[in-house]
Every structure is written in C-alpha cells, then in structure tokens.
C-alpha cells in the first residue's frame, strides 16, 4: 500500500496533468477538424492514417523526452549543431533531399517523403540556443556577448533562407531566438534594437525583392514569385486575386461565414467545395472557423492560451536556467506560429507557410510539437526531484540526479517570471 502511494504521489508530482489535458484536447480538436477537412478529399483515409501514425510516434517521442533528463543536452552542443545544420540543409543534399512544389522540403528515401526536417530543426534549435544562452547564466550584458550569441542564433534562419528559401520557418527561428535571448538575460535595449533592425531589414528585403521581381518576371533574388505575392497581398489584397489574394479572401469568407455557431462539422461549404485552398494544412483554422463558428474558434484560442500559460508555469518552475530557456523557446515557437497562422487566416498577418500547432495536418510538425511537450514535461519532472515531501525519495529510478539546491530553483523562477524587472534593476542574485 505504501509503495502504491509512493507511485501515485510520484506520478502526480512528475507529470504535469494540466499540460497533458490541454494537449489531449488540442489533439482531439485537431484530429476532428483534419478529419472534416480531408473527408471530401481523394485519399481521405490515407490522410487520417498518416495523422494517427504521427500521433502515436509523437506520443512515443513525448514519453521519451519526458523520461530523458533534458539537462544532458547541454553536454551535446556540438552534436546538436551538426544535427541542426543537417536537418536544415538536408533537403538540398542530393540523394536524401527532395524539394517539391512551393516550400515543401522533404527528407526522402528514394521517392518516398519521410519527413520535413525543418520541423524537428525547430526543436533542435531551441535545445541548442537555450544551451548556448544558458552558459551566460542570465547575464548577457556586454554588447560583445550579445553579438556573439546573436550571430550564433542567426545561423539557423540564415541557413534556412540561403538553402531552402523558406521564409516562414526562418521567421520561426528568429522568434525562437528572440524568446530565448529575452529570457536569457539579454538587455531589453539590445533585443529592441535587434527587433527594429530585423523589421527594417525584412521590409527592405521584401521591397528590394519586389522591385527586382518587377523587372525579372516575378521571381526575386531569393524569394519566389508566390512568396512575394503572399507578402504583397497582405498590404493590398487585390494584388493577386487568383493566387494568394484568392486564398486570403476565401479563408476570410470561410471564417466569417461560420458566424456564431458554425455550419457544422463536415458541412462547411467553403472547405468541402474546395474554395478554401490548403484547408487541411495552412488554412485549417478557417475550416474550424467555418464549421465550428466563433464558439469553436474561441475554444481553440482558449486552449492555446491555457497551453501557453501552463508552459509559462513550467518555465517558471524549472530547476535551472536551461529548462526555463527551453520552455521560453518552445513558447516563442508556439505563440509565433499561432499568431502568424491564425492571423494570416483572418488577414491580420501576411501569408507564410506556417502551420498551426496541433491543428494543421502534417506528421513531422505534429511529432515535433509532441516532442516539445515531452521536453516541457521533462523540465517539469526535474523540478521536483530533490524535494520529496515527507522525505520520501524516488528509489531506483534512472532519473535520479543530484538534487538542485532550492535556492537556485527560486532564482531560476525569478529569472523567468520577473526577468525584465530583474534586468532593469541589475540586481539579480547570482548562483
């Protein structure tokens, strides 16, 4: 009986049930909407099969990461770099890479597409950058340090643009970097300047590209015509009425026409009659908005808010700075993708090929997100280790690690929660 209690207690302590609950609800909602969106497509059962395989694979990885102590990643910066660069450029490596139409970049065996390596690259980038930034122990005060970290953190997005020219994913990398730098103790001033430079650069880049494109039959130096059109459409929806403008207006019609309670699952006329392009991937939110209405869409936004809040609490509870930074990177990744994807579905953001976490169809994407959940669970699990209540310790577990001092835990918590305040006062306690 006592041992049972210990186990029960242990699981309660080691598993973040709110996170699991939110993720389970998101998966259920996502699966339902994907089912609805793909049911009228040719090969609908194939979509669902791949999706279920993705869930199973993702759950296995999630458990794996939960069991694995994330802190081991700090010892593997070089292998992570190698893995990351490989993942990013692999679609261009002859023999194993495959570049389909649009921004679809695959790792392939023969002619079979196995996965989109850019998705796991996001998680690897998080683990990598967090490890690099964590070395500064929350102090990136010197401009020299900041620039050094900055240059390192800009390598993945730069590689992404150079080799794959996938603007959306590159932006996700930038968002991840910003989040990690922010929480990692970089001066707010630096981050703000960086952001300003980034935005200026982005606009300048798009402007130069569009000018170049005008003189060169549509394509820019790096960006393809369709990518430019998507960006221009955001400014002027009438630019490309048959292409990107069409996508946008159809997505807006889909969402708007859902009104309060939606047209019912599988009854969305916009989705099922093919007016809505990419409805199971980039525009899945529009399907939800059309079929489940405001109620359904707001439910999803509520779940996302819950997900982020739970992730934030995990970030705050991390036993070390590294865990907090990883959580911050994951939150940045999610919040950026959610805002960008939902925003582009509603015309608030330019159209980029960024999918919606736990909703968009795509196994690589799903597996990566579930793995990220596993990492969050691992962070949560590690936090408790040295402070078993009533002195009961977990015996015989491979997870047994040297306990982290309670003080450090507190400091990490403050770093994450009150980071901005601490930095401003420059009076943060040291480890």
């Amino acid at each position, binding site marked *: 009986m006592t041992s049972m209690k210990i186990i029960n207690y242990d699981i309660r302590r080691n598993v973040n049930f709110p996170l699991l609950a939110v993720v389970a609800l998101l998966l259920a909602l996502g699966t339902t909407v994907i089912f609805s969106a793909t049911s009228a497509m040719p090969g609908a059962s194939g979509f669902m099969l791949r999706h279920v395989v993705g869930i199973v694979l993702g759950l296995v990885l999630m458990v794996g990461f939960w069991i694995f102590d994330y802190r081991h990643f700090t010892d593997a910066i070089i292998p992570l770099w190698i893995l990351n660069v490989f993942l990013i450029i692999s679609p261009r490596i002859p023999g194993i890479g495959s570049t389909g139409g649009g921004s679809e970049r695959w790792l392939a065996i023969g002619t079979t597409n196995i996965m989109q390596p850019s998705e796991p690259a996001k998680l690897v980038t998080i683990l990598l950058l967090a490890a690099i930034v964590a070395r500064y122990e929350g102090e990136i005060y010197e401009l020299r340090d900041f620039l050094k970290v900055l240059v390192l953190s800009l390598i993945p997005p730069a590689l992404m643009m150079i080799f794959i020219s996938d603007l959306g994913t590159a932006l996700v990398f930038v968002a991840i970097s910003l989040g990690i730098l922010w929480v990692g103790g970089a001066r707010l001033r630096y981050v703000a300047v960086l952001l300003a430079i980034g935005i200026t650069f982005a606009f300048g880049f798009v402007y130069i590209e569009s000018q170049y494109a005008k003189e060169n039959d549509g394509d820019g130096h790096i960006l393809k015509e369709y990518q430019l059109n998507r960006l221009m459409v955001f400014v002027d929806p009438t630019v490309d009425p048959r292409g990107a403008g069409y996508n946008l207006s*159809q997505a*807006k*019609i*889909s*969402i*708007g*026409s*859902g*009104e*309060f309670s939606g047209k019912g699952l599988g009854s969305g*006329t*916009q989705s099922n*009659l*093919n*007016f809505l392009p990419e409805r199971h991937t980039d525009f899945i939110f529009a399907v939800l*908005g*059309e079929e489940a*209405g*405001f109620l359904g*869409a*707001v439910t999803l*936004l*509520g779940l*996302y*808010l819950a997900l*982020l*809040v739970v992730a*934030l609490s995990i970030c705050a509870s991390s036993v070390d700075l590294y865990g907090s930074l990883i959580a911050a990177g994951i*939150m940045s990744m999610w*919040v950026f993708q*959610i*805002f960008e994807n*939902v*925003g582009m579905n*509603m015309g*608030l953001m330019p159209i980029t090929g960024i999918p919606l976490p736990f909703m968009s169809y795509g196994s690589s994407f799903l597996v990566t997100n579930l793995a990220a959940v596993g990492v969050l669970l691992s962070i949560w699990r590690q936090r408790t280790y040295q402070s078993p209540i009533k002195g009961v310790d977990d015996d015989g577990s491979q997870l047994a690690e040297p306990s982290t001092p309670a003080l450090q835990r507190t400091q990490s918590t403050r770093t994450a929660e009150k980071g901005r305040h601490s930095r401003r006062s420059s009076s943060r306690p040291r480890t």
Partner: protein
Amino acid sequence: MAFFVVVIGILAAQLWSMQIIQGAEFSERAAANRLREATTIAPRGRILDRHGAELIGNRTTMVVLAPAQAIEDDELVERLSTHLMVAETDVRERIGSVKDAPLDMRVVAIDVPMDTISYIAENQALFPDIEVAARAVRTYPQGAIAAQLLGYAGIISETDFEDEIFTDYHSGDIVGKSGVEYSFETVLQGVRGRQLIEVDAHGRPQRVVEDIPPQAGQDVVLTLDTGIQRATEDILQRSVEAGRDSGENTIAAAAVVIEIQTGEIIALASNPTFDPEQFVGGISSTDWEALNDEESHFPLINRAISAAYPPASTFKAFVGLGGIEYSIAETSTVHHCAGAWNRMGQWDVKNCWNRLGHGMMDMRDAVAHSCNVYFYNIGYDFDVMTDEALQAYLREWGYGQLTGIDVPGEVAGRIPTADWKAAWSLHNPGFSGTWVLGDTVNLSIGQGDVLTTPLQVATTYAGIANHGHVMRPHVLRSVLDARGVEVLTTPTEVAFEPSVSPESLAWMNEYLRDVVTDGTARPAFRGFPIPVSGKTGTAEMPPKDDSAWFVGYAPAEDPIYCVAVFVEQGGAGGVTASPAARAIIGAIFGADTSYRLGTDRSR
C-alpha cells in the same frame, strides 16, 4: 502571461469582428461563392385547333450559341463549321445576323447532337465564349399551316423590350413575334423555373439546392378547324396557280371562313405563305431576306387582315341596303342599263362591265348580275341628296374600321370621304383634293379609293346572314390551364349593329342567293349540292391586273359559315375566286372540293 493574453486577445477580437459583426456579410459571400442561379425557360403554351389538334407544340433541343464578335475569329468559325457540320458561310451568316440585337447570343446551330455538345462544353479553350444550352423550341406537328395567323416565336430582341408587354421579360426568353403567338403572349408564356445550384471552386455543379420547376405556359385553343384551314390553303394555292395558268399575273390570295353567329374564325389563310420552321432557333439572313423580297410577294403578310383592297361589286349589297335605308331606292326601283351611263354628263360617261347593257333592272337583277349602272344611280343620288350618308352607312357595317379580331396586324381599310381626300391630296401633290360626284359613284360599286380587308368583307356578309348583327371575329376559343380546364373563353360579341330592316335583309338574302343560282356566280356553282348565297367582285387596281372576289354563305336558307375569297390579280371574280369559294364550302360541308377555273368574265 499578459503578452499571451494580448496575443490571443487580438486574435479573438478579430474573430469576433469577422464572425459576429461581419458574419452575415461573409455568409452572403460564401453563398455567392457556391450558389449559381440558373433559370430554365418555361415551355410555351401549345396552340390547339378547335378540336384539340396541336398546331404548335414544343420540343427541347440542344443549341450552340455564339456572341456577335465570334465572327471575327476565323479559326473559331472554321472549327464551329467543322464540328456542327454547318457550312462556314452559314455559320458566318448566323453569327453575323443583323436581325439579332448586338449583344444577344446568336444561335449557330440547333438540334446539335449530344456528343458535339459535350465536346464543345469540355473544350472551352477551343471555343471561347461559345455557349451550349437546352432550348425549348417550337414544333409544328401540322406542318406549315395558318402560318401568318399563328405567327412565330423567337428569342426576345432589344426592340421587343420596348413593347410594354415584355417589360418583365429576361433576355433569352422566347416570345411571340407575330400572329397568335404574339397576341396571346401573356398566356402562352410560362413562368421561368429557377434552380439554385451549388458549385465547387471549379464551378462544377455539386447538387441542386433549390429547384422551382418552370411553369409551362397555358395552352390556347383556337377556333380554327385544321381540316378546313388546310383545305382552304390548298385551294388558295390552286387558285393562284389557276389564275396564272389563265394568263393573269396572279400573285396572292386570301380567304376567311367565319362562323356566322359567333364570329369564330374557322379558317383564315393567306397565300403565299411560309414555313414557320424557318424561324426555329432564329432565321438565317438569307431566309429572312427571301421572305421580305419583292419577288416573294411578301409571304409574311397576312393578306386576310393586313392588306386592303377595293371591295368591288361585293359592295353592291351594302350600297343597295343603304339606298333602301336612306330611301334613295327601293327594291322595286328600276333603272335602265345601256352599258354606259352618262348621268354625270357627256364628258364623264361611265360604263357597265357589260358593255351591251343589262336592260331594265330592279335591285334583284342588279345584284344578281352585278349591274354597275344601277348602283351608279344609287351613288349619284346619295351624293346629290345626302351629306356623305353612303360613307356613314358603310361605316355602320364596320367598313373603314377595325373588326377587332384578336390577332395583331389588322388594318381598317378606308372609306373615302371629302375630308380624307383633302388630307390625302396634301401628301400627294398633283392630285385633286376636291371630292367630286364621280368619287361617290365609284364608291357605290366598290372601286376607286375604297379599301377593305377580306376579313371585313367576310364579317359584313356574315352580318347580312346573321340578321344584321356583325359579330366580332375572333380566333381564340379558350385558354386551358395545366389540367386542361378552360380558364378563359372568348365571349361572343356584336361588333357592329348597322341600321337595316329585317325586310330589306330578307330581300338582300334572296338576291344574293340569286347571284349563285342565276347571276354572276352561277357558272362556278353549277351542280354544287350546297345552297350558297354570295356575291362576286372584280377589283380594279390599274395598272395591275384585276383582282377577284367572292364572298358568300351557306347553307343559303340557314347560313352557318361565311366564306370570303380574294385572289390578287386573279382576274374576274367569277373566274378564280368563285371556284375557290365553292371548293372551300365543299370542304366545309364535306362536298365537292374540286377546283375548276371559272369561265365567267362577269363582275
């Protein structure tokens, strides 16, 4: 935390704005996206004869339509020609038709086989702006019959829209253009069906959301008798041919068969005629020009109601009745015919058609033998003793006025008066505008400026047979609803009620009988089993050849039908018109319908 709330909040706010505030607007756009409205033309009502035989029906056919500018695309024209198996010149002609409004789609081919339709529909790149459509077109089970009377239907044109009865019509509607098709348009036209079709993003139909079937137009039952109509048309054709064979420049003929007591038109024919099938799917320019060519003698004109001719001697019955009514003559009044008449002076001698003279004539003899001199005297007295009373009396019978028949295109004819002549001369410089005695004298034998339609001649003689009640002629018997129940019938109406005493009518009936038994129509009706009363006439329209009239009713003692026949440039009435009338009456009563060219040159 606050950051996340703000991010999610922004998205939720936009969601609220789109789904709750602008939701209805987006819903409309979604509906506009997926719903296409298609209207289907309702089948036109059928046109039936008095026995229910279908004169005009409908059938559905696949048509290929092209816009006017398609003619500029030589490759397209060639391709259409090849696939539709229509000569390239014909394709050009149909697309370039000037009869259609500039923006109307032109029918390139009808009765296009399904595989050709599919090919064109599936290869829009090869056939830009070419449309295929199902069209209900008119079908003529009886062939070309009563063509001018029934008229034809066609796609509504821009000029049609100016007609107020077409105010609520859609472009592409099939509408009545002439004849019965036009006059009963409002009942023949059905209500368009409406289909709301859901389409996918490629415009492929998915399902029918709403389907309001078209409401077919109502069937119209006419007073026509197909058998008699067909016989009448055949007989007119034979009389025209016979007229030509006899050396006349016979060009046309018209006939009216009317039921005396009701005014129902049993047959109404005009020769030359046309085949309304030519108009199905739009008439080609060549055909249209042919129908309007001088050489063709204008087959589209319904000569029975839309053309007016001098009534000639058929007028004598009314002049005689007028003389009695105005106490200018009595039945016993006697005048001497010496073949010439010099009452207007030595310098204005008028002749009787019988230059030898008829001798002493009373009104019976004068009518039976159609003596001009007798009626010159009545006309003379009218002119001298009254102020245009003869004209007034003729108008009482309906001459110079519309009978009010329920088909379009009727003309009123003309009863000339001093006022008319004065006005007319203003537009015809060089002609005297002064009414002279000779004008009235001419009028008294139905020559000169007087014009009547064959229909008027028929209705007025039917009036004589109908105790002086001139019934309004009509072709509509009833309108049937979808279940075949009569929803509308034409009332029997008196059109004109001339002042005439029963006694004088009785006398006139007798005289008209004598025309056939003893007078000018005797040769034509010799041996004919049906007792007929009637009158011949020979209209003089120099420099043309004389035109022939016969109007009569049968059976003489208890008249049922009145028949008027006019053969334009057919020579003397007794030669071409009387035999035609005899054959028509024979057809009506199931007697001898043979046509034997008359030899009687009398008037």
